[in-house]
């Protein structure tokens, strides 16, 4: 009963290619024109970057086990996008301070999530959903209904425009980011301990891993990455609105699932999530090309996640 060995990340990449080819067959798809197809592919890749970065934090939290999940990611993206927008306010020299501020803000929100989960034993989904409300509330407090500011030219240059051989900056950023994530997960004690606590927290504790510190750190890091996501998103769009992060939340979880990361924790890879982000961005843009309404987008996304859980997420029965 040996199954054909195909790793989930590879399956996700193949699915992405298949979806891309499918989209070419659509009446208003790229058809057989190679130039348009290349441009289309580049654009899809570029759009995947934002989801990919936001889903990175989601990957870490889910990997840490204990039903870990971060539903505050969408709200944090919105908050940090708005903060970036108002701090930068058109000045190149404000970009770095803005980036630092949003990373800190994201990390703080994540830390609160982690403390609720670890110290107060609130279920992660409930805790982070509650924090999503608090963050949304603080956005209203901060903006009082109107957002003033703008992004700086250098952000557009680096994120949205081609910087090297026609490749947009965002994609290059993503490649570097992916390498760093690999380094974090595979070549640091933090990464190894993350897999350990996601697999079995008792074994980890009895092997000397500081489980509490790891969980707090993971949620904080996830918040920080959502903050980075917000920074990149606003750098790409150039405008901001108070729902800008919401559409990323559900796909970020689905991307992790599609990428083959075990939803119960302890196993997975960021490459899988990258491929998953690509698949979900493709699905979304495919639906947009087909002029499908928001309702169909949600149904398809919901069904995608449900399918992935059914494939990867069965629990043990009572019978021994």
């Amino acid at each position, binding site marked *: 009963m040996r199954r054909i060995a195909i790793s989930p990340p590879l399956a996700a990449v193949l699915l992405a290619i298949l979806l891309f080819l499918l989209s070419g067959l659509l009446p208003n798809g790229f058809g057989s024109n190679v130039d348009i197809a290349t441009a289309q592919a580049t654009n899809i890749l570029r759009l995947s970057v934002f989801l990919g970065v936001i889903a990175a934090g989601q990957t870490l939290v889910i990997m840490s086990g204990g039903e870990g999940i971060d539903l505050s990611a969408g709200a944090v993206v919105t908050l940090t996008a708005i903060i970036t927008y108002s701090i930068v306010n058109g000045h190149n020299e404000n970009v770095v301070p803005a980036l630092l501020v949003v990373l800190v803000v994201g990390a703080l929100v994540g830390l609160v999530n982690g403390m609720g989960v670890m110290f107060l034993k609130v279920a992660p989904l409930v805790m982070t959903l509650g924090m999503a409300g608090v963050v949304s509330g603080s956005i209203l407090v901060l903006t009082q209904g109107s957002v003033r500011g703008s992004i700086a030219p250098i952000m557009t240059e680096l994120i949205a425009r081609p910087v090297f051989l026609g490749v947009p900056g965002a994609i290059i950023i993503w490649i570097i980011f992916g390498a760093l994530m690999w380094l974090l997960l595979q*070549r640091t*004690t933090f990464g190894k301990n993350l897999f350990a606590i996601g*697999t*079995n927290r008792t*074994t980890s504790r*009895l092997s*000397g891993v500081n489980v509490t510190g790891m969980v707090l750190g993971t949620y904080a890091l996830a918040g920080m990455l959502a903050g980075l996501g917000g920074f990149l998103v606003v750098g790409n769009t150039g405008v901001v609105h108070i729902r800008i992060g919401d559409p990323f939340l559900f796909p970020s979880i689905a991307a992790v699932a599609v990428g083959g990361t075990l939803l119960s924790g302890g196993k997975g890879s960021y490459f899988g999530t990258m491929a998953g982000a690509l698949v979900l961005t493709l699905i979304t843009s495919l639906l947009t090309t087909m002029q499908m309404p928001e309702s169909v987008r949600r149904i398809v996304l919901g069904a995608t996640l449900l399918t992935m859980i059914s494939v990867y997420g069965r629990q043990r029965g009572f019978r021994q």
Partner: protein
Amino acid sequence: MPISLSAHNVVKRYGGVTALSDASLDIHSGEVLALIGANGSGKSTLSKIINGVVVLDGGQLLLDGKPVHFSSPQLAKNLGISTVFQEFSLVPQMSVAENIWLTREPLLRGPIVDQNATRRKTEELLALFAGMFKSKLTPDMPVAALPADEKQIIEILKAVSFNPRLLILDEATASLDSRQVQRLFELVTMWKQEGKAIVFVSHRMEEIFQVADRYSVLRNGKTVGDGFIKEVTTKALIDMMVQEAKVENVVQRDLPSAGSLEERKVRLEVKDLRAPSLNGVSFRLHEGELLGLGGLKGQGQHPLLIALFGDLPYSGTIVLDGLPVHFTHPSQAMKKGLALVPGERAREGLLLIRSILENFLVPSWREYGFPLRIGKARQKAEDMSTRLSLKMAGLDAPVSSLSGGNAQKVVIGKWLMRNPHLLILDDPTKGIDVRAKADFYQLLAQLCNGGKSVLLYSSDDEELIGLCDRVLVMHDGTIKSELIGGSLTRSNLVAASLGTSQEAEQ
């Protein structure tokens, strides 16, 4: 309705381990059969086979003379076989009455439960133990609010409420006090006269002699003797439980005499250690000593070991290499050269879905810098697996692909990679095969000869006797006796564990 149940030549294997190789048992209406055996002799497995919880791999089960196959515990229950479980089958949040009658609630009309009838029937059952409860026990009290002995009584009453033909009492007296035990025995006598058959599994000799009519002795999964209680002595029973033949596979070591032990440096000194279910434990462990920890299961051995390793808050003094220490997290104990091989391999010792490599390295990643020098780590893991002669497909295979013995080697290996000088082992050979055990004993002997200290709890008495320099026998959260040199014999160990005094008879 009378009952007779026979098990013939029952075989049961778990993976590569044989729990029962040739077990037999006969029980009829109106008698009490004592099922006796040392730790790990297969008593629990045999009682789980006759109540349908475990399916047998070989042999035959006859109910009222006809072959029978229990596809589920429910079926056995419907045929009149009821068990008092060692692990509690009660829902803590629910009341006493709700728990006892769950799924068999008396109905008023339609689906409505007759609360009064439930309460009345519960009170009738509780009356069987009237006066035996510390406080007034009513049918409406939540089970979680009861002390352990009263929970055990509710468990017994739940089994009795089925009005079974055959009642299995598996260590049912373990948490009861003597008055409660006496009442239970009066009831057992009464049920016997009513025509029920009772299987009584217990470690306590005096209880067996008081209540049982017949006995059946298990040793290493084999039935080695049966007969009438009236025709046997305690000593004869213990001799039957204990294997006369020389134990193989246990490494011969030069056992130090008591004098030479005392001359060595003290590595660990524990004074009046207290924690939940630890009532003041004191002992010393020397350099190069292999100190055994014995006794019946659940007498405080596990809490003692994890308290030493910083995983259980405690009061008392622990002195390590002359310096007082108080660990509050295992990582602190590790830094001082301690290592713990936990008892529940899958639940506490392994990261099942991760690779063998990562399992070897969980405690020591920090030593490999940033970025982690994976090559060096892999080399060390490779060396360790060679040293332990680990049979594996490769270091990247998931640890779940290993057999029990090899998986346990990984758990030990991950600590040996840190070169600890005090190894704490919690029943490390449970469920591993003979070959792996032999390797393991060899390894422990090497470590001790190299000056390391080992504290070993084992549920296998043969192991303690064949391997250890000294054995401390625990009972009820304290150290009951110390066996060393000439006094370290099987009979003494069994007698000390069972709470009878073997020396007195000799």
